[in-house]
Structures are given as C-alpha cells and as structure tokens.
C-alpha cells in the first residue's frame, strides 16, 4: 500500500476514533449541565454576592483588624470545638448505628418497615421541639428524676444532661442515627452473605469475618454516612444553642451571631469561608478515598440476604438493637406525642380556631399542604438532579472534585447563603424573591447531597458486565439505566427521596427567610406558637409537631411503597 493512502486512512481513522471515544463522555458531560447550572445559580452566585458585599460593608472592613479576629484565638477555639464535637458525635453515631444497620440489613422481623420509617422522624423535628422532648424525658421534672429525688431524698434533680457536651452528643446521635441506619443498612442489605460465610469457613471468627471482609466492603457506604453525619454536626446550630447552651459555640453559631446580632458581615463572611473550606477539604479527602474504596460487588436481592432471626442469641440481638433505637429515638418522640394529648384533643381542636382573627393564623391543613407541596417539589428536583449527578460522576476518576462541589451546600452556613439569596434573587434573571420556587430550590440544594451520597455507592457497586450485557442485547444508554441501574439503585434512591422529603419538611431557617407568610409550613407554625407564653400555645406547638411526625411517617411509607416491578431489593 502506498504511503500517502496509508497516512490518509490513518488520519480518518483517528478522527472517527475521536468521535467514538468522546461520545460517551460527551453524554456524561451533558448529564452534568443541569446540576452544575443549578449549583452555579443557587449556590455560587448568591455566595459570591454576599462575599462581595461583605468586602464593601460599612465602607469596607479594616482588613488588619478583620484578619486578626478571623485567625485569632477565639476563632481557633471555636473551630477546635466545632471539629471535636463533630468527630465525637460521628464516632458515637457510627458506634450505635452500625449494629442497628446490621439488624435492619440482615434480619426480617415484624414491624420492621414502620420502625424504619420512624427512625427518620427525628430528622424533621425542629430543635426546639426536640429540646422539649429531651427535657420531658431527661429534664429536672422528668419521671426519672422525680423518682430518683424521692428515692434518695434529694433537693435537686440528680440527672441533668442539659447544657453539657453530653447533651449535644446525645442530640446529634438522636438526629443522625437514621443516616447510619439507612445509608449503611441499605447497602449492607444487598451485600452477598456468602462472602462473610466464606470467611467463616476459612476459619475466621464472626468478629474477624466482619472486620476482614464485611467492614472493608461496607466502607463506601460507611464513609458516605460518616461524612454526612460529620458535616451535619460540624454545622450544627439549633442543637448547640438550645441543648448545649450559651457556653458552646460552633462556627455556624458564631457566623449567625456576627451576621445577625452584631451586624459584622465581613467577619461572618470570613468565618463562613473557613467553614466552607473545612467542608471542602473533608469532602475532597472523602471523594478521593471513595474511588479507592468502592469496588464492583455482586449485589444480592434482599430475599436472598435477609431472614428471620432464629436462635435465641439472634432474637436477643435484634431485640436489643430495636430496644436501643426505641429508647434513643422512640422515647422522646412518644413522650412528645403523648403530651400533645394532655388536654384531650383540645390542642388539636385549637389548631383549627382563630379566635383573635389574626391575619397570620395558619390553618393546619394549609400548613400541612404547603409543607407537603414544598417537600414533594424538593424531592422531585433533588432526585432528578441527584441521579444525573451520580450517574455522571460515579465512574470518573476526575469526578471527585465535582463530587465535592455538590456536597458544599451542606457545609455552608444557612444564614450566609440566605443573605446571599436576598441579594441576588431580587432582580432578573433570578427574580425569585418570595416565590415558592425559591423555597424548593433552597431545599433542593441541601437535599441533593443526600440523594447523591445514597445512590453513588450502589451505582459504583454494580458490576459493569451487567450494563454491558444490556448494551449488547440492544439497550441504548438511557434504556440500560432504566433497566439495569434504576431497579438496582431503587432502594438507595428511595432512601435518598426520604431524606430529601425530610430535609424539606423540617427545614425552618431558609424558609423563614425566603417564604411568604401566605405559604406557612408546619415548622413555621410551630415556631409561631412557641414564641408566646401560655399553655395553649405550647400545647398547639406539641400538636403541630405530632402532626409533622405523622405527615412524615406517611410520606416515608408512601415513598418506600412506590416501587417499580423487579426492584424489591
């Protein structure tokens, strides 16, 4: 063959290959367009606006003084406390949550579904309500303390966790237990039990088999859960203020105080930046690790991996864990719900009355309706964007940086972002101030990481040959996703949806800043009741909280029962 034709064919070859090789990547890039646009418009744009304004605030801050304060001992102290309590909370939550996750993953027992739904309830409850529940169970006037006082003839209640680090940790476990249970549990439930059994036959004790085989395989889900718990505790606000009391302050608390109470926007912005950088650093480490931790697994359906507890030991173990969960999560919730009936149905009846003719009276049906509408909108949008993001990123080596970006909103001070929204959502192209859409967008920003973190480990664990087999059998990429990925990740998606729904239902801060009074949500109604003295107000707040729990449990059960055929995982 003459040289020139050879060259020519080589060139055309090259070009056709370029097109070929890049086409799947091009599709993946396209998948990211929407999530990235969303992130740019509703996260980076408002955030950059608030940082820009803070630089010109009050004629521009005295930079030297600002830097001295920003990197002063007080900030270091706060940062140390923030990270320390978050690490402790995360460790404690993992420690308590892992056995629970095991029980939920491996055993089938009556009432499991309902229990599963109930564990997520704390996630939606406003901190004030949780504090009230804790006070009722552990407070100075709780049955426990009363009993102790009369038994030992004490003048003061002996047991009082309030305003201690212990209270903060306990509350963080209370809130985040479900994250470990759900994220680790749903992954664990599809892990092939043969792997652990093989290790046992090779001479490993149950504990060794867990440490050497199961634990390493669980790591992707474990790391995902730990990261979420840590970031949540790292940016903790209400728990620190109300249960920890004034002696404790996280960065988030310091940011709020500087921005709102002291009006020191530049310092608040600086602290926010520190908080964001910490989150970013942590997430980057995580996403880099995750690529190394995740490996394709033979995911097995639940009917293969789960069974009823049989031996006395197994039954005891299941009961002990359910008992622990019930004591930890159930007791405060049940106490709360029970107290809302202290005056019979009076507090519930009062929800439907507006004796003072207030223009801000919130009919409970409207509050529930608004909350559910926002939550459904958030869930839909978060699922859409989350699935796009996870699909685009799960197999990319370079995806870690982008992946980390999507986690940032979780680690960003709500008040900073809220003020940013205020600045940029007023004029075109984003004249959204006061629209319901903005609330949905704000909630989605926080809900999105939950969907991504739930779906990604499962997507990464699906054996590539399954997708390739579907492709050679004639399924185009979208079809492969619908037929192979979707049914297998459905559980994880449902868990993500539950969290998205929950995040939206319970969210108060952003809603109160961007909502219109015509569209009150349940948490807003609860706060309204709690801001005035009197039994009826308190009772109505309890009744509304109970209503919130009921709506959430209904929502969870509904979401989890929505399953396409073949996805009973």
């Amino acid at each position, binding site marked *: 063959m003459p040289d020139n034709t050879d060259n020519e064919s080589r060139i055309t*070859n090259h070009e*056709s290959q370029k097109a070929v*090789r890049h086409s799947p990547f091009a599709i993946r890039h396209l998948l990211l367009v929407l999530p990235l646009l969303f992130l740019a418009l509703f996260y980076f744009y408002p955030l950059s606006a608030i940082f820009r304004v803070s630089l010109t605030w009050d004629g521009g801050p005295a930079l030297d003084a600002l830097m001295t304060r920003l990197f002063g001992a007080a900030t270091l102290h706060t940062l140390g406390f923030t990270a320390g309590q978050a690490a402790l909370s995360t460790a404690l939550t993992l420690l308590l949550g892992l056995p629970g996750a095991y029980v939920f993953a491996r055993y089938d027992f009556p009432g499991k579904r309902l229990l599963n739904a109930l564990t997520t309830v704390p996630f939606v409850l406003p901190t004030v309500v949780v504090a009230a529940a804790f006070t009722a169970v552990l407070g100075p006037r709780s049955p426990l303390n009363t009993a102790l006082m009369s038994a030992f003839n004490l003048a003061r209640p002996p047991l009082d966790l309030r305003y201690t680090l212990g209270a903060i940790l306990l509350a963080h476990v209370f809130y985040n237990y479900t994250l470990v249970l759900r994220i680790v549990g749903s992954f664990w439930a599809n892990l092939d039990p043969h792997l652990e059994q093989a290790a046992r036959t090779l001479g490993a004790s149950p504990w060794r088999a867990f440490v050497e085989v199961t634990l390493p395989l669980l790591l992707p889900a474990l790391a995902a859960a730990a990261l979420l718990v840590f970031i949540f505790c790292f940016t903790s606000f209400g728990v620190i203020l109300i249960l920890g009391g004034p002696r404790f302050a996280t960065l988030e608390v310091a940011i709020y105080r500087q921005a709102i109470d002291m009006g020191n926007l530049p310092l608040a912005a600086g602290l926010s930046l520190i908080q964001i950088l910490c989150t970013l650093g942590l997430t980057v480490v995580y996403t880099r690790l995750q690529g190394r931790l995740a490996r394709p697994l033979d995911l097995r*359906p639940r009917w293969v991996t789960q069974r009823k507890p049989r031996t006395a030991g197994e039954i005891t173990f299941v009961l002990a864990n359910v008992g622990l969960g019930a004591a930890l999560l159930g007791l405060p919730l049940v106490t709360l719900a029970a107290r809302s009936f202290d005056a019979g149905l009076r507090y519930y009846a009062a929800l439907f009355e507006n004796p003072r003719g207030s223009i801000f009276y919130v009919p409970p049906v409207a509050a529930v309706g608004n909350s559910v509408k926002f939550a459904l909108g958030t869930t839909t949008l978060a699922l859409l964007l989350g699935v796009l993001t996870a699909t685009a990123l799960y197999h990319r080596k370079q995806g870690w940086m982008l992946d980390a970006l999507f986690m940032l909103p979780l680690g960003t001070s709500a008040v900073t972002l809220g003020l940013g929204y205020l600045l940029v959502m007023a004029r075109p192209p984003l004249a959204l101030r006061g629209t319901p859409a903005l609330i949905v967008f704000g909630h989605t920003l926080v809900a999105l990481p939950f969907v991504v973190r739930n779906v990604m480990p499962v997507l990464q664990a699906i054996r590539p040959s399954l997708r*390739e*087999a579907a492709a*050679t059998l*004639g*399924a185009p990429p979208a079809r492969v996703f619908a037929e192979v990925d979707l*049914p297998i990740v459905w559980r994880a998606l449902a868990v993500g949806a539950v969290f998205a729904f929950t995040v939206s239902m319970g969210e108060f801060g952003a809603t109160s800043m961007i909502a219109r009074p015509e569209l009150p949500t349940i948490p807003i109604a609860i706060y309204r009741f709690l801001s005035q003295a009197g039994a009826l107000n308190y009772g109505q707040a309890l009744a509304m909280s109970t209503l919130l729990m009921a709506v959430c449990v209904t929502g969870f059960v509904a979401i989890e029962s929505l399953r396409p055929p073949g996805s009973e995982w």
Partner: protein
Amino acid sequence: MAFLELTDIHKTYENAPLLCGATFGVERGEIACLLGPSGSGKTTLLRIIAGLETPERGRVFIEGTDITALPAHRRGVVLMFQDYALFPHRTVAQNIAFGLRMRRHSRAAIAARVAEMLALTGLEDFADRDVNVLSGGERQRVALARSLAPQPRLLLLDEPLGALDRNLRERLLEDLPVILRRVGVTAITVTHDQEEAFALSDRVILLNEGRVVQTGRPEALYDRPHNTWVARFLGLENLFPARRSDWQSDLRIEVPFGVLTINDQADAPPPGAEGHLLIHPWGIHLEAGTVNAFNAQVTQRTFHGSYFRLTLAVDGGTLRLDIAPGQTPPAPGETLHGWIDPAALRWLPA
C-alpha cells in the same frame, strides 16, 4: 469481504500495547474461536467487536459496513460474558426476554420466543426462577438463551465454559456447538483452552501478543503450525533445531539425532535453510524401520487412562508419544529402535 472483518486493530491498556495490528475475518454462519494465552488480547478483541471498547486504530466491518463508531446497542452483536452477567433483579424468563423487549417485539412474540429458547436450552421448568439461586450450569444456559433470543447477527462468547466444573464442561462442549449450529448463528468464542477451541469451532484464530499468528480449521492448525510458538502452544513438543541439506534434489533434514527425510514438497525450505522440525507423535513407530530410523531410551512412562504417554531420550532432545494400552508399553530404561513416518514431519521456518 468476509461477514466480519477486523483490520489492523490497535489498543493499549495502561500504556502497554495490548493489541498491535490484529487483522482477521469470520464468514457468515461460521463458529470461530479466538485462542490464545492469557494477556494475548482476545477478550479485548471481543469487546471491541461488541462495541464496548474502541480501538485506537483500525476498523471493524460487518457485512461491509464500518461499525467502528456504532454504539454497542445498535450493532446486533450480543456478548455472553464469562460471569454470565445475569440481571439479578429479574427472573429467568425476564432475563431471556430482555433483548427482545429492546427490539420492541410484541408481548406474544416475546412469550413465544422465550418459550422456544427455554426449550432449546432445556430450561422449560425454570421460567419463573430467581437467577440468584441457579447452579453454574443453569446460569450458563440462561445466559446462552438470553443471548440467542434476539437472533443476533453475531454472537460473542467469552470463555463460555470457563466457570463450569469438568463434567459439565465435557457435556456442554458437545451441546454448545449443536445448539449454535441448530440456530445457525455466526459466533466467536474466546478461550485459552485449545481442546475447547478445537471442539467448539469451525475455525481457530490464534492470537499472541496482540497479533493474529495463525488462523485455520482446527485440524489444519494442529497439523501444520506456522512456527514453533504455535506448535508449543498447541502442545506439540517434539521440536528439534534443523537444517536442510544443501542439495536441491535432496529433501533431507539434519536434526541432532540424525538425518530425516521428509516428503513434503510444498513447504520444503530452500536448500541450506535453518529452522525447526516438528515431529507429530502419530508418525513415531517403535519398531525397526528402513526410513528415518532412530535409537532412543525410554525415560518416563505415565498412564492416562485411555493411553500411555512415553518420553524417549534421543540425542539433543526428547520425543513424546502416546500409545494405546492394548500394546505392551516399553518400560523406563529400555532402549529401543524406531522410525518416523516422513508424512509426520513438518518444517517450521526460523
């Protein structure tokens, strides 16, 4: 042009060349086998044909059409994976129906075809079973049924018997070509096992270090390997360095233990050429003869059930041959005379 043509396929994996200019064709209705040691790039070639990998250079044609850039799902080429890749969330019947659903067949047509495939693979009673509880052989048959159901233009099988136990393998080694021929599909299997390759295929494509080293019908390949690597890979071990005598008229070859005459005119090397001589074991006779006589000593005798394998020491090497157990085999240490049938000698160029 053949039904399937691959030209000059190049592919590197983690900066090491994996395929370097593989070129071959497969005819319609043929069952071809890509045979080669592990790391020879055969699975990658299969994935390139399926559209799951893109070659860095080279083209793939089916029926004269360049499909190099065509995505996997539009090729009509089905790959049966080594691990079978059964969808764990679907039943046996749903797995088999998958490809048909992708082609938008009617429900009735899908049901009929699934039933047909279940019957073909002997899985009639398995339709609603959970694939997660099937045995290895059953999984293999489901994977085969699923692959054949949509009537692919080309079926690719990656180590189709690799994951099975010996008895099952032996049986399927017979069943698989019968099934494939019954449906008349063009197929390429990949294996590292020559026995499997010979039993399954009409034609073997032998790969080494990313290149096709020889193709041909299994018997032809075995009978006349192109070089010493091929011979050794196929288990032909009676190889000796050799030199042809300088006389044009004389077809005599010098080997370390003597001078042998060949009657192969066609492949005869030029006078004075150096290379290797392959001696097929079936041409070695352990009795005194007039042509190509040799002396040897038995060094080893092993019993293989249906035959004895003898190792004979000759000057400059060893000869191996198998003899039927009906005869009394010579014992190790015995010295004996033999001759070699000139028809069993093959000249391999250096």
